[in-house]
């Protein structure tokens, strides 16, 4: 008996759980047999199956980083109104499914009264996808949850209304690795000073050859500093990306003053209409101004207003700019165009205007 007790529990390598037993029964029963859908209200989708079954989805925003009280509250709402099932979207919205139309309005009312805004469908601005930031990351230049909370407060109206030309996906990232990914608008940290190296720690903490190999511009080389093996950075070559910092924490890249925020626009993941695109730099040098980053919020709102007023229906940010041209974009948003907007990384030539097409 005691032998069995001492034997440590080994993991059950069960992998990705089967969603079928957890799924709303109407979705399970009509799996693969849906016919069409529409959006009767902002935040509500109605899907109709070949069988004639209908299901209404009510989408609401959450704070993503949720305490168990919030999650239990969301569960209580699901038990009372939505047959005890929910799902989450890739952008941390929660979705409730109901098979009875009469439950839609009371569910919306309940979610709103509990502080969960209903929206995020169609041509709205959905929840900002975010990363970990100061709350949990080991290399963050800024926070993530706080940036998202403050921006969602500012664009709350456009989460709850479908007034944009097409959907708008906003992302944030707290370092230049950019875990947040591509966005119609992306708000990312941009470092402006080379790493500050604690030479006393490098040889103990860092695997020096792999740090040297990590640098995209070969600016790092092994060196003896104060009689200790360390690393040094050619500051003329260094473009301050911070790639050396994760494998070598003594190469501190974050700086309260010089780690800035940059805004990029026109990223698009889907192959809908145009092919997927990367986002492009439009402004940098914005202060990392916690707790509400007002300078960033103002420019994001200016860009959104220009897009809302000038894009044609169904044009995503990148498609709109593709039509009107970059000169007009900078004019409409009153943002400066600088030498830093002209790419000099590999493949940069493809981003130059190799034609006589000029906007006036």
């Amino acid at each position, binding site marked *: 008996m005691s032998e069995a007790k001492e034997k440590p529990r*080994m*993991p*059950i390598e*069960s*992998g*990705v*759980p089967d*969603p079928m037993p*957890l*799924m709303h029964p109407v979705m399970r029963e009509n*799996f693969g047999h*849906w016919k*069409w*859908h529409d959006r009767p209200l902002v935040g509500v989708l109605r899907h109709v199956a070949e069988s004639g079954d209908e299901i209404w989805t009510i989408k609401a*925003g959450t*704070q*993503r*980083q*949720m*305490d*168990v*009280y*919030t*999650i239990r509250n969301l*569960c209580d709402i699901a038990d009372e109104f939505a047959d005890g099932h*929910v*799902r*989450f*979207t*890739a952008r*941390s919205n929660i979705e409730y499914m109901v098979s009875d139309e009469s439950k839609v309005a009371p569910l919306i009312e309940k979610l709103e009264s509990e502080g*969960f*805004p209903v929206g995020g469908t169609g041509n709205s601005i959905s929840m900002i*996808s975010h*990363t970990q930031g*100061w709350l*949990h990351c*080991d*290399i963050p230049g800024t926070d993530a949850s*706080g940036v998202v*909370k403050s921006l969602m*407060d500012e664009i709350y109206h456009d989460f709850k209304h479908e007034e944009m030309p097409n959907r708008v996906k906003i992302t944030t990232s707290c370092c*230049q690795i*950019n875990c947040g*990914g*591509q966005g119609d608008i992306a708000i990312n940290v941009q470092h402006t000073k080379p790493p500050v190296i604690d030479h006393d720690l490098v040889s103990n903490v860092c695997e020096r050859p792999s740090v040297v190999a990590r640098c*995209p511009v070969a600016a790092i080389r092994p060196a003896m500093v104060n009689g200790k093996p360390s690393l040094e950075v050619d500051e003329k070559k260094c473009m301050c990306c911070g*790639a050396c910092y994760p494998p070598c924490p003594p190469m501190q890249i974050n700086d309260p003053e010089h780690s800035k925020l940059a805004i990029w626009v026109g990223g698009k*993941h*889907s*192959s*809908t*209409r145009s092919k*997927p695109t*990367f986002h492009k730099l439009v402004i940098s040098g914005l202060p990392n101004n*916690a*707790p509400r980053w007002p300078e960033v919020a103002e420019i994001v709102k200016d860009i959104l207003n220009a897009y809302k007023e000038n894009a044609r*229906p169904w044009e995503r940010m990148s498609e709109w700019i593709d039509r009107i041209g970059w000169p007009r974009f900078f004019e409409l948003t009153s943002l400066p165009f600088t030498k830093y907007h002209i790419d000099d990384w*590999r*493949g940069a030539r493809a981003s130059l205007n190799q034609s006589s097409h000029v906007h006036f």
Partner: protein
Amino acid sequence: MAKKLPETPLLDQLESGPWPSFVTGLKRLAESEDKPYAGMMKDLLGQLEHSYETRKGFWKGGTVGVRGYGGGVIPRFSEVANKYPESSEFHTLRVMPPAGMHYDTETLRKMCDIWEEHGSGLIAFHGQSGDIMFQGATTEGVQNAFDALNDIGFDLGGAGAAVRTSMSCVGSARCEQSCFNEQKAHRMIINSLLDDMHRPSLPYKFKFKFSGCANDCVNASHRSDFAVLGTWRDDMKVDQEEVKKYVADRGRKEINDQVVNMCPTRALSLNDDDTLDVDNKSCVRCMHCINVMTKALSPGDDKGITILLGGKRTLKIGDLMGSVIVPFMKLETEEDFERLVELAGECIEFFAENALDHERVGEMVERIGLINFLDGVGLEVDPNMVSHPRTSCYVRMDDWDAEAEKWAQRKSSAAE
């Protein structure tokens, strides 16, 4: 006497405003005096406020895991533990969600109970790779929390140089635009590669993502090394009576401006009788017209998948989009799914053997060329893999005739 809630004047400013506040949630946990995590969450709030004051992060990594696995836990030790001792260890367990992120409340409540007992009470649904992130366990709490979560059917996700946790869109469960069983493909591929997820030994991370159509709701094209996207190869389905209703309802100008003229390959035309003319040979299955006219237009019946390889973010050579390695493949029968799993395994194997340390598969392909990759995993070239053929003549073409003959043979065997 209970420990005091720290003063957090900066974080307090994130409690106002209409969007749900994570700060309010953190405080609720910190004030749960009857719970084991109250002290930990008070110190966590203190450290977070300290970050807001100094504009710096104070977490460092380390080595924490569970028995039997080499990854899946993100260790976090505080660099300011002297000031905030109770949150000095604040590790995250990455846990794989059910495919499509469906839950019942019984499961969510069990997760809450487990995380109240063994962790901080703070859970993120979900991280950027799709993990449920149970944030905030002590080193001792990690194993206990994992055991309890594992007992209710959940398993750790990926971290480090490993196959990572995957995501699939809602797909067949609710969406008429879905072109394959996303959840089945997701589970079959990932569950066949669990050893490479739980015991990280690849050159670098490798991500799979599954979207049921070109709308790509889980951002597979750019955010995964191996993107599976639904498509079809027969004609798109058109219900002309419904088309006429859309035209009657919205007017010809709107249908022309917002549907016909937005087709990227000029494959659409509105007929004089308000029916829609579709040139299916030019259509690239982009989904735009189907998105706008959901009741009139839908994907064809001969559905399958397109596979893109090599998407990734900046580090190290710059962003890469995934590019086509399989233009079309059926995904209906068990044999079809097994062929997909086999291909995924071949890609992982080739990546493991040929990529440099810390090199993503897209970077490896950039370095060695697509042809060497295709040869390595046994795929044939196809004009759908390029935007246009080569523009540079700097290449040796000694065996042109043999290669042209291969193409002729493939065409004649396809015609049989």
